[in-house]
């Protein structure tokens, strides 16, 4: 049975030129697996992730024919229900730790906040927060616990964010470009943490990224988005058999260590893809 089902999700923003639809009818089911959503900037992949958590910023409007998380209809959820879900059962890792952590609160306090909100006693919350920092491979968890976000490097901040989202052991994690700001070697470590959570705890993971190569090596299944629509859905291992010209174009335009193709093929966008 699926953890999350999304049917015909649409996100619209009003503009002076009339409503602009940034997500146009996205449907998918997520089990306890790693699902990748790939696309370029502006393809609507982040908006899709936000809409699932009910975080579409006003005046944007998200609608769907169906939006169900573990049998709960999210479209009808009121503020109280959302509070009980967000953070505890489904959470999101944002792209940039610089803008997503509270700059005037120590990291440890932010980590404990989730647990305290959902009713854990202070001492237990502190222990679990420290354990989680250790679990995301932070060498000196005590220091990071006391540190303010500006005292951490980008990689540390990102790991602290991941720790924060995982400390409550959610069933669904939406990770929006969680590793784009990280160095390649650290990136692999972070992915390993996420991978472990999926395989050991049965978490469902939606991994949003622009990096097709990374997604194909990490996820089970990949949705490719273009202009607010899913243009292709593939098993990650089948990526080289991609049929849609957009997916093929994205794959081909990456430089390769071994390839010596010059000029690099560029992507010729076709109006028909947006239909």
């Amino acid at each position: 049975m699926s953890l999350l089902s999304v049917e015909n999700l649409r996100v619209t923003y009003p503009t002076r030129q009339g409503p602009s639809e940034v997500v146009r009818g996205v449907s998918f089911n997520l089990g306890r697996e790693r699902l990748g959503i790939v696309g370029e900037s502006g393809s609507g992949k982040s908006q899709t992730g936000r809409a699932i958590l009910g975080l579409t910023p006003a005046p944007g409007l998200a609608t769907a024919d169906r939006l169900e998380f573990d049998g709960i209809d999210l479209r009808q959820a009121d503020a109280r229900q959302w509070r009980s879900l967000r953070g505890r059962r489904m959470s999101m890792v944002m792209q940039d730790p610089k803008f997503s952590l509270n700059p005037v609160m120590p990291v440890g306090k932010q980590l404990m906040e989730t647990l305290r909100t959902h009713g854990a006693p202070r001492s237990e919350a502190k222990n679990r927060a420290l354990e989680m920092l250790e679990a995301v491979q932070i060498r000196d968890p005590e220091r990071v616990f006391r540190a303010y976000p500006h005292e951490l490097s980008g990689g540390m901040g990102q790991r602290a964010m991941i720790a924060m989202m995982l400390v409550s052991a959610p069933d669904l994690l939406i990770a929006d470009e969680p590793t784009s700001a990280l160095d390649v070697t650290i990136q692999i470590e972070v992915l390993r943490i996420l991978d472990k959570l999926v395989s050991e705890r049965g978490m469902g993971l939606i991994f949003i990224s622009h990096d097709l190569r990374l997604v194909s090596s990490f996820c089970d299944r990949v949705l490719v988005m273009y202009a607010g629509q899913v243009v292709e859905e593939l098993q990650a291992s089948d990526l080289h058999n991609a049929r849609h010209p957009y997916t093929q174009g994205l794959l081909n335009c990456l430089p390769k260590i071994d390839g010596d193709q010059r000029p690099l093929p560029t992507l010729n966008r076709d109006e028909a893809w947006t239909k």
Partner: protein
Amino acid sequence: MTGTEMSEKTMTDTVLSVENLEVTFRAGLEEVRAVRGVSFTVGRGESYGIVGESGSGKSTVLRAICGLAPTSGGRIVLDGAPIPAPRDAAFYRRVQMVFQDPYASLHPRHTIDSVLSEPLAIQGFDRREERIEQALEEVGLGKGFRFRYPHQLSGGQRQRVAVARALILEPEVILLDEPTSALDASIQAEVLNLLDRLRAERGLTYILVSHDLAVVSHMCERLLVMQHGQAVEELTRGALRARQAQTDYTKTLLKASEGYSAEVPA
């Protein structure tokens, strides 16, 4: 001409050499040695890559070359003569830089026209109108973009403006600091093709800093791997492709750039 032929040919003619470069930042009592004794030489017409993770000092090397970071030791030699500190106009006439973030490196309230005319005015160039139009043409933007503001351009278009700004002085050496890391993959391909074409047409020398081994392998004949402010290893493109890395660190980088693999690395 293939990469290896080019590097052999140009090895004899060094345009820029960096010898035991040291860069130390001081804040109060704290000292950070960002670059610790890095040396390399770049041949005329060569494209030289510097690879490393954040904090490895790779960008600081570029900034030190163009005078944006304080050098505390070592020499930087351009065409046989140590470069003056502070850098003079004649230096910038020959060496120009393209920065990483096209959103931060263009003045938000200056039109493209004023961005491009400023270096021309400083260097006392003639035929400015013509040169601006030509520079925009060369980076594939065209005259229509001349009186726009940066916010009216996409990331890829802005990076083209940054390349045009560097090119307009007809320099010999261009320092490229992560020129495509802020761009989408398809736009990255376009900018890399542009840089490749310009180098072939004008015989430019590049020093390209990137964290992406694939980009460096595509663009550069030789590369230097840096870690913690030190040079770890210098490789040719051929050695990189043959996976003939000597040091563990470079091997780790190579492995990591292939994507995620479930098994724990040994």
